[in-house]
C-alpha cells in the first residue's frame, strides 16, 4: 500500500503498510499528568499531550497498542522544542515501549516535526507505550509512529493532514450525522446563554464545546471573573456567571459546577463536551452543517440544522462559512473613534494588527516546606530580572506581527516563559523559600481576534453617544476599556504586561443587528466575535455582556424557527414580537 500525495505539483509516494502504526498521543488510555491541549489544531494539525507540571515532572502517560506483524520497527514522535536556544530544551521527555525506555531525549527539535526515537523489535499482539516527562516544563507530544520503513511521516502541515487521514483510514465525512434546531459552537458564557434561551423556547439545541468544562474565559481553566450587568437576562445569566473574586481564584471551580448543573437541567440542550468544530459547510451563503471532532478519541460528528451560532470567540464558524470579518485596529477615521486624550494608544491614525492581547493567569502560595524551583535560563531571556509571585489581567501579550489565532501557541508559550522566569526571580528573594507555584493556566484567555461583520458594526460612538436602537437587546454601563502593551510607552518594561485605558460612559445599547452575519444567511454570533470595531469591543467584551448577546440570540433563533425566517427577516418583520420576548426574559413563565 502506498500513500500518494501531490505536493506543489510533485508526487510524493510514501509507503504505507498494514503494520504501520500511528498513535495519537491525546488518545492514550491513561494520560497520567499529561493534559490534552486542543488549542492550536488549526495551526499545527492536532490535539496534543502537554506535560504542564509547573517544573515538576508529571506522571507517565500510558496506553497499549496492537502490532500485527513481528519485526523491527522504526519509531518517531511528533514533538517540538518550544524554547529553542543556547540552553537545554525545557520540555524534554522519553518514550518507553514495553520494558525499553529509549535514551533519545525528545522535545528537542525546532518546530513541530517528527523526531526519530530509535528502533525496536515488536512482537505481534498487545504492546505498551509510555510517555515519561523529564522536566515538568510543558513537554509536548502529538503522535507516535511505528514503521518498518525508515521513512519519517511528512512534516509539512497540509501533506501531514492528508497522510494522517489515510493512515487512520478516516472517511471523507463524519459517519454520524445529527440534526438540531440550533447548533451553538462554543460553551463560554455567551454560548451557554444562547443554548438556555433557545432551549427554554422549546428548541432542540446542540452545544459544542472543546473543553471538559463550560464557561470559556470564566471557567476554572482560565479563571477570569465575569463583569458587566445583567441587562434583560438576569435570571439566565445568574445561572452562568461568577462572583467578583480576584482573577485566577480557585473558586472558579465552584462556579463551573453551578454552571454545569444548570445547563444539565435542560433536557433539550444536547451537550458535546470535548468536541471541537473543524469545518462549516456553506451552500448559497447558508450553512448546511458544522463538523466536529472529539479532542481525545478523534471521532467525528456532523451537526446539521437551520440555524447556527458562532460563540467560538475566534469566529471560527463564520470564518469557515465565508462570513465577512475584520481583524486589527481600524484607523481612527474609519469610524471616527478618536479620543484626544490618548490618541494613538486608543485608535491609531493608520490601521494595524495591534489588537488587545491574550492572558495566562497564575498564582503562587506559601507552603509549609521550603522548595527549589528549577533554573529557567530559557525564560530569563523574556523576563530579565523582573520578579512576580502572581499574575493578574495585566499579564497580557500582543504584538503587531503576531496574530492572536495563527500565532496562538507562540503567544501562549511566551506567556509561560514570562511566568516561569518571573516566578524564578521572585523565588530567589530572601523569605521566599517556601513559595511554590499553585496554578498556571495553559489555556489562552483571549480578548480579541476575529470580529464577524453584521448588519450593524458596533463602534465607540454608539457607546459614547448612548445610541438607543429599535433593536437594543443588550444594555451595558461598564467603562470602555482598551488595552495597550506597557513597553510601547516605556521600553524598559517587559513585553508581557499591558495597561488599560478607560473611557467613562453612561448606559449604552447593542443592537440585534450586530449579532447576525451580514452575508451568511443563517449565522448568529455572540461573544467577542460579534460585529464591532476594535474600540467598539472595548466595552462589551466582558462576560455578562457577551452573555446578554447569547441570550438575545437564543431568543432570536426561537422566533426564526417559529416563522421559518432568517435572522435578518426577524429584524425586518417581527421586531416587536422579538423585543417583547427579550423584555419578558425574567418572567417566571419563561423558567421551565
Amino acid at each position, binding site marked *: 500500500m502506498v500513500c500518494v500525495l501531490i505536493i506543489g505539483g510533485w508526487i510524493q509516494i510514501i509507503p504505507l503498510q498494514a503494520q504501520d502504526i500511528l498513535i495519537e498521543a491525546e488518545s492514550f488510555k491513561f494520560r497520567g499528568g499529561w493534559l490534552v491541549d486542543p488549542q492550536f489544531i488549526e495551526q499545527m494539525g492536532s490535539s496534543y499531550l502537554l506535560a504542564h507540571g509547573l517544573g515538576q515532572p508529571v506522571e507517565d502517560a500510558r496506553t497499549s497498542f496492537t502490532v500485527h506483524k513481528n519485526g523491527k520497527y522504526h519509531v518517531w514522535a511528533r514533538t517540538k522544542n518550544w524554547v529553542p536556544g543556547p540552553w537545554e530544551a525545557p520540555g524534554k521527555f522519553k518514550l518507553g515501549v514495553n520494558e525499553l525506555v529509549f535514551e533519545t531525549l525528545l522535545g528537542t527539535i525546532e518546530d513541530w516535526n517528527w523526531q526519530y526515537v530509535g528502533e525496536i523489535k515488536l512482537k505481534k499482539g498487545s504492546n505498551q507505550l509510555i510517555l515519561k516527562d523529564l522536566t515538568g516544563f510543558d513537554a509536548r507530544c502529538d503522535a507516535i509512529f511505528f514503521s518498518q520503513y525508515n521513512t519519517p511521516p511528512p512534516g509539512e502541515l497540509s501533506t501531514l493532514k492528508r497522510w494522517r487521514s489515510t493512515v487512520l483510514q478516516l472517511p471523507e465525512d463524519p459517519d454520524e450525522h445529527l440534526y438540531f434546531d440550533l447548533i451553538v459552537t462554543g460553551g463560554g458564557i455567551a454560548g451557554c446563554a444562547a443554548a438556555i434561551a433557545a432551549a427554554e423556547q422549546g428548541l432542540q439545541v446542540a452545544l459544542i464545546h472543546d473543553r471538559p468544562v463550560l464557561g470559556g474565559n470564566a471557567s476554572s481553566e482560565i479563571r477570569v471573573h465575569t463583569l458587566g450587568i445583567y441587562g434583560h437576562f438576569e435570571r439566565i445569566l445568574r445561572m452562568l456567571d461568577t462572583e*467578583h473574586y480576584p482573577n485566577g481564584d480557585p473558586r472558579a471551580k465552584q462556579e463551573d459546577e453551578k454552571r454545569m448543573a444548570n445547563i444539565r437541567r435542560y433536557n433539550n440542550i444536547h451537550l458535546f463536551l470535548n468536541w471541537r468544530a473543524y469545518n462549516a459547510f456553506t451552500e448559497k451563503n447558508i450553512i448546511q452543517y458544522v463538523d466536529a471532532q472529539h479532542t481525545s478519541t478523534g471521532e467525528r460528528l456532523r451537526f446539521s440544522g437551520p440555524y447556527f451560532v458562532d460563540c467560538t470567540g475566534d469566529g471560527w464558524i463564520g470564518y469557515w462559512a465565508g462570513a465577512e470579518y475584520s481583524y486589527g485596529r481600524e484607523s481612527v477615521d474609519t469610524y471616527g473613534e478618536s479620543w484626544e486624550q490618548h*490618541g494613538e494608544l486608543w485608535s491609531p*491614525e493608520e490601521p494595524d494588527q495591534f489588537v488587545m492581547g491574550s492572558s495566562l493567569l497564575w498564582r503562587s502560595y506559601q507552603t509549609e516546606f521550603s522548595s527549589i524551583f528549577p533554573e529557567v535560563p530559557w525564560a530569563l531571556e523574556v523576563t530579565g530580572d523582573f520578579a512576580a509571585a502572581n499574575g493578574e*489581567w495585566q499579564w497580557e501579550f500582543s*504584538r503587531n*506581527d503576531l496574530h492572536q489565532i495563527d500565532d496562538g501557541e507562540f503567544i501562549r508559550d511566551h506567556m509561560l516563559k514570562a511566568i516561569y522566569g518571573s516566578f524564578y526571580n521572585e523565588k530567589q528573594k530572601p523569605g521566599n523559600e517556601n513559595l511554590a507555584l499553585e496554578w498556571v493556566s495553559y489555556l489562552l484567555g483571549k480578548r480579541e481576534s476575529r470580529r464577524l461583520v453584521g448588519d450593524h458594526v458596533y463602534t465607540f460612538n454608539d457607546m459614547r453617544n448612548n445610541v438607543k436602537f429599535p433593536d437594543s437587546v443588550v444594555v451595558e454601563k461598564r*467603562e470602555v476599556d482598551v488595552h495597550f502593551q506597557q513597553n510601547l510607552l516605556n521600553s524598559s518594561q517587559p513585553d508581557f504586561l499591558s495597561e488599560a485605558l*478607560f473611557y467613562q460612559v453612561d448606559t449604552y445599547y447593542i443592537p440585534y443587528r450586530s449579532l447576525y452575519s451580514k452575508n451568511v444567511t443563517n449565522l448568529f454570533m455572540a461573544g467577542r466575535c460579534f460585529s464591532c470595531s476594535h474600540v467598539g469591543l472595548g466595552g462589551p467584551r466582558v462576560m455578562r455582556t457577551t452573555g446578554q448577546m447569547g441570550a438575545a440570540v437564543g431568543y432570536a433563533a426561537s422566533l426564526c424557527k417559529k416563522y421559518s425566517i432568517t435572522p435578518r427577516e426577524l429584524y425586518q418583520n417581527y421586531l416587536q414580537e422579538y423585543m417583547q420576548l427579550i423584555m419578558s426574559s425574567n418572567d417566571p413563565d419563561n423558567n421551565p
Partner: protein
Amino acid sequence: MILITIHKGVIRKIVWLFWLFCLLLFCAFQVFSPGDSYPSHDLDSVTVLPAKDSVFFNTVYFNTGDPDSFYYESTVRSPVCNDTLCQVVLLKVFWDLRGNYIRFDTLINHPLTKNDHKPFTSSDYRKLHLTLRDQNSVLGRKKEDELIDKVQTRYSEKIDAVTGATDLQIKNAVVEGALYSTYTLWHLVNGGIGKRLKGYTSANYNLDMEKQLMRSDDPLAIIFALKQWAVKDYTDRFPDVLKIMKNGSPMVNFYIAKKLPPESLASANHQKAIQDIWSSLDPNTKSILVKYLLEE
C-alpha cells in the same frame, strides 16, 4: 414630629445659607488677596478655565518668553467641598504644549490643607503631583458622588482594571485626607482644558515648538509633532526621521513606520540607513518596515 421635622429642615437651610455666605466672602477675599499677582511678562492670554460650578474663572496664559521652553500656566482658584465644608485652593499650574499637566507651584501663604486643616506634607505634595500627572487615573472615570461610600464601606480588593476602578485604586490615587481636593484638581487640570491648549498650540504651531516637542521624553509629544508633518516631509526630512528613530521609543517608531510612504525608503541610502539601525528597533516597528525592505 412633623413640626420638628420642618423645624430641622429650616435650620438645615439656614446653616447651608450661612456656609454659602461664608464661602462667597472667602472667595471675594481670595480674588482680591495679595497672592493674586497677574503675570506681566511674555504671556499671551489663551483661554479661561472655569473652576467648580463656575465660581471662579481662571485665565490661562501661554508663556512665550523662552523659545526653548514654551508652556501654559494659570493661577488656579477652585472651591473644594466635601459633605460639610468648603475651602478654596489656590495653585499655580503649568501645562505643556500638548495641554498636559506638567507641575504645580503653591503660592506664598496659600499652602494646601487637608480635611482636618492640617497642611500638606512634602510627600502629600509629591503624591498630588503624581496623581495629577496620571491622565489615566481612576479619578477620571469617577463621579464625585461615587467617591466616599466606596472608599468607606467596601472592603478593599486587589486592583482589577478589567472592572475599572476598585476602592483600593481610589484610595491609592488620592492624597490621604484630601480626597476632594485631589479629585477636584485632577478634573480641573486634566479635563477639557487639555484639548483647548492643544488646539491653541496647533493653531500657532512653529518650528521652535517642534524642536521642543521633539526633545521630549514623552513619545506622545513627539507623535504630536509628527502629526503636524505632511506626508512628503517623511521623505524630504529623512535624516530627521532617522534621528528620531535612533532615539525614539517603540511607540514613536511604530507610528513612523506606519506613516513612512514607500518612496521614502526607495533609495539605496535610505534602505541602508534603516538596515543600520535595524537591530535597535522593536518587533512592532520591524513588522511594518520589513515589507518595504523586502520589496526592495
